């Protein structure tokens, strides 16, 4: 169990509503992509789960319990959080970065670091390196390992692969999808890239102006069954694919 339920959540910054009365349920073990243009409120909605953003009204339930009832630090320690700018601690080694969640809880790291490095496909030799000695892709692999380390079952990912080159991005996306499956995780991933969402997620939520305007499986979206906004977004990669096919023909 690590299902997430948003109940009428709302958040305004000044006069604009970033999230406007959103209600929806994310099933345990599902991979949900939150898609929308920048400013559509998808990151704000995501951060309500681990209380990096507190809704003005409404509530967020995690496994049926209101996240507002739990100490925010304890809550965050059992939720994995991966974001575009990675944010590895530059003065700590890769191993220390990965084990930080365990350190905060006062738990020993034991063989966990080696296990996690293996899981995210990094050589064990990386453990003693400093973050600035790694490539961008390797750094984000460490970011994922750090998020998984405390045994998190829920992963919140905010444009996790957005800053990587397309090749690395694709490889990392696929590797993460496999990990999601293998570990039985629940993943909510924010992305503005519809192709990435369609290829990785079980379910895609489309956001515009703080509201959910489309909701469906990738198949629903491709078939145009998830509303006009979703269809418009799906048309972009589809048209690109068509043009590529024509170029190759």
């Amino acid at each position, binding site marked *: 169990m690590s299902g997430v339920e948003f109940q009428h959540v709302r958040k305004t910054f000044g006069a604009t509503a970033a999230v406007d009365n959103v209600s929806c349920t994310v099933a345990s073990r599902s991979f949900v992509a939150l898609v929308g243009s920048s400013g559509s409120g998808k990151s704000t909605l995501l951060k309500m789960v*681990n209380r*990096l953003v507190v809704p003005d009204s409404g509530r967020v339930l995690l496994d049926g319990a209101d996240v507002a009832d739990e100490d*925010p*630090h*304890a*809550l*965050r*320690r059992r939720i994995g*959080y991966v*974001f575009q*700018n*990675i*944010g*590895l*601690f*530059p*003065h700590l080694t890769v191993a220390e970065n990965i084990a*930080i*969640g365990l*350190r*905060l809880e006062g738990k020993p790291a034991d063989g966990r670091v080696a296990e996690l490095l293996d899981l995210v496909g990094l050589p064990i030799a990386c453990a003693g390196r400093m973050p600035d000695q790694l490539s961008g892709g390797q750094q984000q692999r460490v970011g994922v390992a*750090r998020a998984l380390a405390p045994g998190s079952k829920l992963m919140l990912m905010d444009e996790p692969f957005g800053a990587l080159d397309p090749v690395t991005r694709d490889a990392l996306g696929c590797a993460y999808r496999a990990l999601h499956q293998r570990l039985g995780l629940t993943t909510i991933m924010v992305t503005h890239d519809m192709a990435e969402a369609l290829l990785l997620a079980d379910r895609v939520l489309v956001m515009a102006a703080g509201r959910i305007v489309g909701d469906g499986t990738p198949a629903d979206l491709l078939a145009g069954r998830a509303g006009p906004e979703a269809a418009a977004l799906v048309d972009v990669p589809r048209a690109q694919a068509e043009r590529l096919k024509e170029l190759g023909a």
Partner: protein
Amino acid sequence: MSGWSRLPELLASHVLLAAAALALGLAVSLPLSIWAARNRHVARVALGFASLVQTIPALALLALFYPVLLAISSLVGGGVPALGFLPSLLALGLYALLPILRNGVAGLTGIDPAVREAADGVGMTSGQKLRIVEAPLAAPVVMAGIRTAAVWTIGAATLSTTVGYPSLGDLIFAGLQTQDWALVTTGCVAAAALALVADALLGLIERGIRFRRRTRVWLGFALLVGGTAAALAPKLLPQQPVVTIGAKNFSEQYILARLIGRHLESAGYRVRYREGLGSAVIFRALVAGDIDVYVDYAGTLWTNEMKRRDVPDPKRMVAQIGRWAGREHGVGLIGALGFENAYAIAVRGADARRLGLATLDDLARVAPRMVLGSDLEFLERPEWAAVRDAYSLRFAATRAYSPTFMYRAIESGAVDAISAFSSDGRIAAQRLVVLADPRHAIPSYDALLLVSPDRAHDARFAAALKPLVGRIGVEAMRAANYSVDRDRDKRSPDQAAAWLDARIR
């Protein structure tokens, strides 16, 4: 030379003051940096205040603490020392704030926002975030600020001499007054060397933090603590009671302090010296017991402390001062030494002959075409106001010098008249003419031996000093002063005191 023998003691004292001030600066500015980094308003106010403090010259900042502490002391019913360690500590501690605060805020706000977001994301409490992430990342920048603060503090600590806390500045100020450049250089070099060593050790710690070399951090830290502890050690040993002899900031005072010291030492007392104290500060220091004995001048006490404007006969004046000092402050008057060191206006002998100058009335005629050179305090003193008003003196310009340079200035023609001291040997040596005061505008300046309230009824102490009373004539004092002030074949104040002692015993 006496200056050299005091070097270890002054160095230790200097180290303690600088270390304490830096510790105070750190204790205030580090928490303030953290607060300021989290709150823009706090940052603006704190940095604004620290910058403002920095614009005040260190010497003035030290001087300002004197009235502030006096006021605090009277509010809480006494017991707060206004001179010595406390004002020095507070002024230098304030001075150390800005570099640490500025770098602290810069170090903390300069941390990559992604790193902060990650720290929140992994569930760090704000305390954990500070300890695990912010402090280590800001540390190199903060250390750079601490290094700056340390160098400033060690440099500015030389000025604590002026409020009666012994430091390497004692050598500099004493050397400056007696034109003993070797002594000045010794003080400067010692302070600079101390600053360099402290900077190097803090630099070792800074690099240790930057490159994650714990042994370097601990080595630097251990050496700093060890050095401070070594400076502190002598203070912790049980000490015999010591008599503190005060002196103002000119040669005669240095010589008289040593002369008093010789007599007290031969009576079995251990003595130390607080030299270079300002006129306004030294009497208060005596009242507070920060010094035990010093020589002041009748006219100075009469006008500055008693606020009297009349000019009575010298004998009656001394008697009245003695009664006033005992009644108002518990201060004991041992007696007058025998000579007078009055303020006087002197001109070049050649000018006096050419212009026919013999009295201040004569001077008033030609003053509008002349420049008056004075010591640093004369123009602010009531004596100047009295002379100026009595003779309607109007000079073309006035310039203030330290006494040594004032005599240079009249010799070189930079000024035409000076506020001389009647016991100064340079008057005769430079063929200056002292102008008479027919209107009796300036009171008498008999040199008076004063003791603190604690010593006022100490018969043994008084007996040790009595032999000085009435024994020092103005000729002897002038000769002793000149032997220290002249350019060639200079004596140290110690040697001059020995010579004077031999003449009067």
